[in-house]
């Protein structure tokens, strides 16, 4: 039965959904905001990459110093771009999978408005140095509360939509979105509120639980929701296996949350907790391989479509990056490997492959695929979209690979204490230079992408007028 559902869904044969006109207002506003932040924060990203090469750059202006811009880069990319894009795309796909309109476009628009208030206030706070000092949880408490309110508005809207759905059976993407909504609530509350009542190692443990699961139980499930929706959609092929997607989902639900302490391996935290986090980190391979196998098997016999289909290029490259990054993760958690790569430049290489290479690629693909449907006209330019793919791809690969090589080498040097620390800094300078130029390529990708999106959106406006 499920198989049929996905087939019908894919072919767009389901008559009832054809009768519905989706307004997509909330989706559009979220996507347009997200893409704008992608561009703005992309500039910040380039500046901090440049500061590794030219440390005196803008060095005497406090709000533009490295320690202020780095959290702006991280929070801006995670919450301004990626989460906002994910929220917009789920506003697009959930109503379609449920065969009904979004429960309330008004509420959705209010959520988008509130989200923009949060992001813009965050920019001011971080530049002023109003930083709580906890990674991913830098924002002041007042903004944390607004995030919770926005999340309740977002989740409530989608749950109401889901509860009114036409089809009783829920496609995988719906579970993943529901999972994202409930897990995020708990993970976010732990990372931003519970931490405030603790100190020291106890606080660090909660902080890492949050940091790890911000990726593992927020960006991963919503990213997979997009992949499960857009891969079959864009390739016009039903999903390979429903059962496999269930294994992936339920093992993710169980395994991910245990692994936070692997951020403190060899550090001042109980050995037994480190060991637990290692064991569960290795088990992460189960949900990852289940999902990835499903995507590959779906594409069987369809790979030729990659040549022409830009969203599919992003999607399948994203799947490969997801596979790689989630192979690295468990490997880093092994004590012997961790002793080399931990705290080095390898780690940003790994993190960017997850958040840019996998999850942003899914969101970009979804945006390219959804835009024409939402605006009822073709994308502004297919060839620019293709160019954006190659810029992201080349820039991304340059970034990941140089940081791995550089970071591994750096870790190797640190373990030889005869080498003075400063020599290990100087040794990495060529690596940081290549990283900067890769960053320029990635930024070019952002420019091409955001221009294309805005041109499509604005063009659509003109047509109406």
């Amino acid at each position: 039965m499920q198989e049929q559902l996905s087939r019908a869904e894919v072919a767009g044969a389901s008559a009832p959904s054809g009768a519905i006109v989706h307004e997509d207002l909330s989706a559009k506003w979220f996507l347009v905001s997200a893409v704008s932040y992608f561009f703005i924060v992309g500039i910040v990203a380039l500046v901090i990459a440049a500061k590794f090469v030219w440390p005196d750059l803008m060095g005497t202006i406090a709000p533009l110093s490295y320690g202020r811009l780095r959290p702006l880069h991280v929070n801006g990319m995670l919450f301004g771009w990626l989460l906002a894009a994910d929220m917009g795309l789920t506003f697009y796909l959930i109503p379609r999978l449920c065969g009904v309109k979004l429960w309330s476009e008004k509420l959705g628009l209010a959520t988008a408005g509130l989200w923009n208030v949060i992001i813009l206030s965050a920019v001011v706070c971080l530049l002023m140095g109003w930083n709580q000092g906890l990674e991913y949880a830098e924002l002041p408490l007042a903004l944390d509360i607004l995030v919770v309110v926005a999340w309740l508005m977002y989740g409530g809207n989608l749950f109401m939509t889901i509860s009114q759905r036409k089809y009783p059976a829920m496609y995988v993407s719906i579970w993943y979105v529901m999972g994202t909504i409930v897990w995020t609530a708990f993970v976010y509350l732990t990372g931003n509120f519970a931490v405030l009542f603790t100190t020291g190692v106890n606080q660090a443990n909660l902080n890492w639980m949050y940091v790890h699961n911000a990726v593992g139980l927020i960006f991963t499930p919503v990213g997979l929701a997009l992949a499960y929706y857009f891969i079959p959609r864009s390739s016009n092929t039903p999903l390979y296996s429903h059962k496999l997607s269930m294994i992936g989902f339920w093992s993710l639900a169980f395994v991910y949350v245990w692994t936070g302490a692997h951020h403190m391996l060899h550090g001042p935290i109980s050995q037994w907790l480190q060991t637990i986090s290692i064991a569960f980190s290795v088990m992460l391979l189960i949900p990852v391989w289940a999902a990835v196998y499903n995507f590959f098997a779906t594409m069987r016999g369809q790979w030729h479509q990659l040549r022409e289909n830009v969203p599919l290029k992003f999607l399948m490259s994203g799947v490969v990056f997801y596979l790689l990054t989630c192979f690295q993760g468990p490997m880093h958690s092994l004590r012997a490997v961790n002793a080399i790569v931990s705290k080095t430049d390898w780690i940003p290489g790994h993190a960017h492959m997850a958040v840019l290479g996998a999850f942003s690629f899914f969101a970009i693909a979804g945006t390219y695929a959804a835009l024409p449907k939402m605006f009822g006209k073709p994308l502004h330019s297919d060839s620019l979209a293709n160019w954006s793919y190659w810029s992201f791809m080349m820039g991304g690969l340059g970034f990941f690979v140089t940081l791995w090589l550089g970071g591994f080498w750096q870790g190797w040097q640190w373990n030889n204490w005869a080498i003075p620390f400063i020599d290990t800094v100087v040794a990495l300078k060529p690596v940081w230079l290549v990283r900067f130029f890769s960053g320029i390529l990635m930024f070019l990708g952002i420019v091409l992408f955001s221009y294309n999106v805005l041109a499509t959106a604005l063009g659509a406006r003109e047509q109406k007028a």
Partner: protein
Amino acid sequence: MLRKADNSASWAVAASLVLFSIGGILTTVVPPLVDSSWAKPFENSDPAKGPTGKLTQLNELQLQGRAIYVREGCWYCHTQQTRTLLADTKRSGWKGVDSPVSTPDEFVYDSPHLFGTKRTGPDLSRVGGKYDEQWHRTHFRNPRDLVQGSIMPPYPWLVENPQEFKAIVAYMQSLGRAKNWRPNEDYEQ
């Protein structure tokens, strides 16, 4: 059993929350209950058991310095943990004496914790007493005046503000001092 979740949203939500909370509770709520060293401040007066000393709360000035450290994002480039790796104890060491490993009981009063994730600069968990005030003044004004090839940002606004400068140096000198590990009380002021 999980098949039920195919058709029932509330079932799917309930099941995903239950599975999530098993690990969630066992790895966040339980460990501090089981491991008392997370909450008990370091104190040792018996040299046979390792370095002696006592963890005390930071004073007003040191806390102000710590707030500056948070505000300026020093913790994005510096860790504060000497890990159980030989290289770490050597690098945090002093004149051939290895530094003791960081233990949870040294961080009981820390909030926000500043263990850090990235070592763009060296670990600072035992930097207390490594350099004198004059060194820090020059270093914060422009690190490259002291250390050729450094990529640490300059902090002229700290040096030019006497109160803030005093505070950040007081905080630097407090780091790692709960354990009195250097021979002959050899700490710079």
